[in-house]
């Protein structure tokens, strides 16, 4: 298969899932670079220059709260999924499940 074609479509498919992953991981407080690594480990190849602005946007939308932790060697901004963020995550997850079910149904009995 054409690699470029595949990666293009995969990118389209995964575009919205980064928010889902962020809200999921940040149920426990996390900071920028730590989150980047966690996402990388989970298989989301998000770039730093996308993730850092995204965190601020989610914070501005009230889906994340943030606080500066100055106890460690260098101050870090920790983000946590807020109550509205959790509600949004639940709604997104329900939709995710629905989509998953629908897609599976569409392909059932057609394995070749």
């Amino acid at each position: 298969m054409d690699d470029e074609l595949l990666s293009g479509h995969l990118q389209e498919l995964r575009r919205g899932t980064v928010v889902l992953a962020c809200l999921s991981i940040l149920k426990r407080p996390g900071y920028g670079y730590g989150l980047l690594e966690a996402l990388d480990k989970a298989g989301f190849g998000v770039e730093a220059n996308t993730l850092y602005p995204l965190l601020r946007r989610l914070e501005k939308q009230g889906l994340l709260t943030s606080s500066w932790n100055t106890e460690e060697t260098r101050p870090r901004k920790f983000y946590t999924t807020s109550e509205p963020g959790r509600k949004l995550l639940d709604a997104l997850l329900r939709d995710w499940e629905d989509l998953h079910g629908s897609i599976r149904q569409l392909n059932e009995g057609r394995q070749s």
Partner: protein
Amino acid sequence: MSTLTDRYVFAALRSIPEAQRGDIERELRGSITDDVEARVEGGQPPAEAEAAVLTELGDPARLAARYTGRPLYLIGPDLFLDWWRLLKTLLLIVVPLAFVGSIVVRMAIDPGEPAGAFGAAIGTAVNALVHLGFWVTLAFGIIQYNGTRRKDLGLGAWTPAMLPALPRKAQVSLGDTIASVVLIAFFIGLLLWQRIGSLMYLDGEPVLVLQESLWTFWLPYVIALLVIEAGFAVVLYLAGRWTYTFAAVNTVLALLFMVPVLWLLATDQVFDWAFLANVDWGADASSWIAGITAAAVLVIGLWDIGDGFLKSWKASRPVPVQQALR
């Protein structure tokens, strides 16, 4: 703190509003240091690690645009079609008018230089094109930069009622329109030029063909009418097809030309017969020249009126899509 990171953070913060700078700077520096340290722990030399981290973060202006949500394009998909349509419409109206207007003014001021007037008119038209392109795009760029959306501008959503009628192939083509506008400009130039240049010479002196007294009213009237005709041709092209309204306007314009000209010919107010002294066309030359001219004005005028109605009738009949697209 290392120089490269300092320069990067400075470049990125420059285009971020001051109120957000402090917080973003602290976090961005922290994230860069985290990443560099992780790479150094993995065995990379510090300088190399720093360069790699900054390379991955990419152009600082792009990063800043992501932080502020500013677009990285001049005109986005939301406004693009409005920009393009407005630009096309304005260019089609203003550029031909600038061309004709420039010729008229230049020939009125300096009728002895038709070539100069033509060149100046081309210059004016190009000028109008460049200015329109620049200012319209600038205005849309500012609207886009401010984050204004189409609906904020009061532009309605697209509805099927906005669909254009099926175009009639070759009914009003761009080539025909340009040809008629250029022809009208040429006629106006000729009228102005013959006042001093003339087509005929007698002993090296230009001979006036048209009576000088026409300049007090009738020639300016005809020139104004020709300018209106040029505008009509452009409007017709923009509409793309003839309608009975256009045919009616066309009739009025034709009559506004025919009636006074025929009356002027009948009362012998058009030609300055002095030019006949130059040639030997017989004693009754003045009457047959006036007669032929009157017949030509009448035939061309009636044909023009009839043609308008014929095309309107043709345009009112339904046409299959395939034929329209051909």
